[in-house]
């Protein structure tokens, strides 16, 4: 699983990720079993940065619990005055978020941009 700042400056032309932006790469299997780790990672970046970049391009499997985690993460991030950016989101992630009506709340970019 990629570390917090693993893929810091792999510029894909979309994210003007500032140097202090924390990057979290969502794991390919982003389902319930993976979420304790993901939560810890998200909590870590919550303390740090004003800008958090999520990379969802590798997500192959997602479930409601994953999206709920992201929604609550974004809510808290906003409450602290931070912003959330996406470095990409896989089709799976988009499909799941779309189906659950959470794509807009999460401000997911369309698939393929990743």
């Amino acid at each position, binding site marked *: 699983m990629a570390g917090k700042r693993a893929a810091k400056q792999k510029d894909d032309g979309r994210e003007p990720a500032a140097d202090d932006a924390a990057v979290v790469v969502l794991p390919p299997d982003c389902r*319930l079993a993976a*979420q*304790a780790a993901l939560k810890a990672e998200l909590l870590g970046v*919550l303390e740090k940065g004003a800008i958090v970049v999520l990379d969802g391009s590798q997500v192959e499997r997602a479930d409601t619990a994953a999206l709920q*985690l992201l929604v*609550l993460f974004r809510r808290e991030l906003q409450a602290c005055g931070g912003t959330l950016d996406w470095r990409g989101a896989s089709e799976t992630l988009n499909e799941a978020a779309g*189906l*659950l009506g959470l794509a807009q709340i999460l401000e997911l970019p369309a698939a393929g941009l990743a």
Partner: protein
Amino acid sequence: MSAVDLTQFHKTFFEESREGLDAMEAALLALDSGSTDHELVHTIFRAAHSIKGGAATFGFSDVAAFTHVAESLLEEVRSERRAVEAELIDLMLRSVDCLRAMLARSSSGQPVADADSEALRGELMRLASGEAAVATVVAPKAAPANGWDIRFVALPHLLQTGNDPLRLFRELQQLGRLEVRRAFVVDRAPARLADLDPSQCHLGWELRLHGAVARGDVDAVFDWLDGDCELAVEAMAEETPAAAAEPAPAGVPAATPAPAADPRPARETAVASSEGGSIRVGIDKVDALINMMGELVITQSMLSDIGENFQLSQLERLREGLLQLERTTRELQESVMRIRMLPIGSVFNRFPRLVRDLERKLGKQVKLELHGEHTELDKTVLEKIGDPLVHLVRNAIDHGLEMPAQRKAAGKAETGTLKLNAYHEGGNIVVQISDDGAGLNHAAIVAKAQQRGLIAAGQELSDAEVAELIFQPGFSTAAQATDLSGRGVGMDVVRRNVRDLGGSVGVRSESGKGSVFTIALPLTLAIIDGLVTAVGHERYIVPLTSIVESLRLRPEAVRRIAGGGEVFHFRDEYLPIMRLHRAFGCADAITDIERGIVVVIEDDNRRVGLLVDELLGQQQAVIKSLEAHYRRVQGVSGATILSDGSVALIVDVGGVVRLGRRSKAA
């Protein structure tokens, strides 16, 4: 007329109507499978007729109007002006479903006629009097709903049951266009991410499902979520009804009511029972009860006669009287218990229909065999066993039995056999669901378990261990998911429900030959026959049904094994000895094995010997929950009060055997 409050009869009407519908369904299915018995037609007609009459009397005009059309169609069949055709049977079966739903709605005070029922009524009328009738049949209010507004709020534990809203929404999408009008985080969600338990769900949705979807189909999606979510489904409010006014095409809904038909009545009965359900008792049972009562009165008067002016010479008569009292009390108790016992046939009866519908939907051929329908079960147990059984039957047909072509290729008959069997075994009722299908897919289960992290990669598992995996929460080999089963909701819920009833469920499977699911249920939840044993100053009750033998061991029969365990030789095997005084920490107990008594108990074909001080006698014990009064204690299933007023604990045989085996293994 107005002086009589008819509402007091409503409940009876609903009950009778449901029974009528059951009879109608059974007769229709018999006709469907080729029976030409004319009496069946009469049965169907009579049922429809009395529902119509009752509905009209009690002012359920929608039900009456619906049944009227069905009845006139049936009248034509009865007078042999119309042949019994597949189309007619299909339509009638759907009418039965529809009437069930209508009755359920009437009994809960909701509007009775809906789009489905009116569309169906249209079809019935069209069949009854030719195509011309269609236009006049469909009244404006008859328009099917254009969709459903669904409010769905997950309860925290929803995800833990293996249900994922994502999957549910996908299923809804299959029915029609799904629009998420609002997704929200509920108030009880933790404010801070740090406090979030990811396995708890705190989301809610307002959905709109567009399209002429039957209510039953919507309900079917949320089947099994009872108690795991808050759910409200309402017909979509706006949009002009005209567009969808034509009756639904005959073929489409025909296949679908099956999942809807089962959950709904079940849910209704659950509601009814919570408000003090009623029970129908055969007159013979009541007579037996009155007989016993008479005996009891005689015994009582005899005893009080002796007591009036007692002399020692009457001691023998007193003893006799007491013996008689004991006997009568026991018989009375049995008679009373029997009142609550109902034949399992009432649950089995829903399966022919379920199987028929699944057959058509999946294109499989299934022969259903029912055995032991007369086996009686406690009403509470019976009510709760329905859903798990439905689930197992669906699974067996969906996953177990192969498609006809596959079966042929495997050298089996194209028609698969599904057997339901109920019988007594010891103090239990055993229900078996067996199929001659492909058996559990060993490889797929192992792969899934590894993927879910339940077992390590490369771990070798025995068949029994693999079978056990399917009972893990949320376990479903999703590769074979269909809308019938494989929603990831599954065997764990079945096991939970069965365990709640004090029963157990297991599976045996042989690749290519089929699987057998076995559910063992206690006969009653309240009383057991037990052997009272003494250990130190304590009394323990061992359920009689699990005792194999009790014996006194000679010292040389006992062997010590490494690790401090003790075993003894018993009928070709070595059994571990479980010292009850050690397990439960009793002081002043006999510790020499040769001075105590060993009671051999058996659970699930595994045996251990319990060392106790002595046997005090046999007694019936009314089980009091230890959990309710104290807390759960390992190895103890409950407590009871002895005749001298002291408390005795009841040994949980399953738990003790497991403990004993573990200490042997250690």
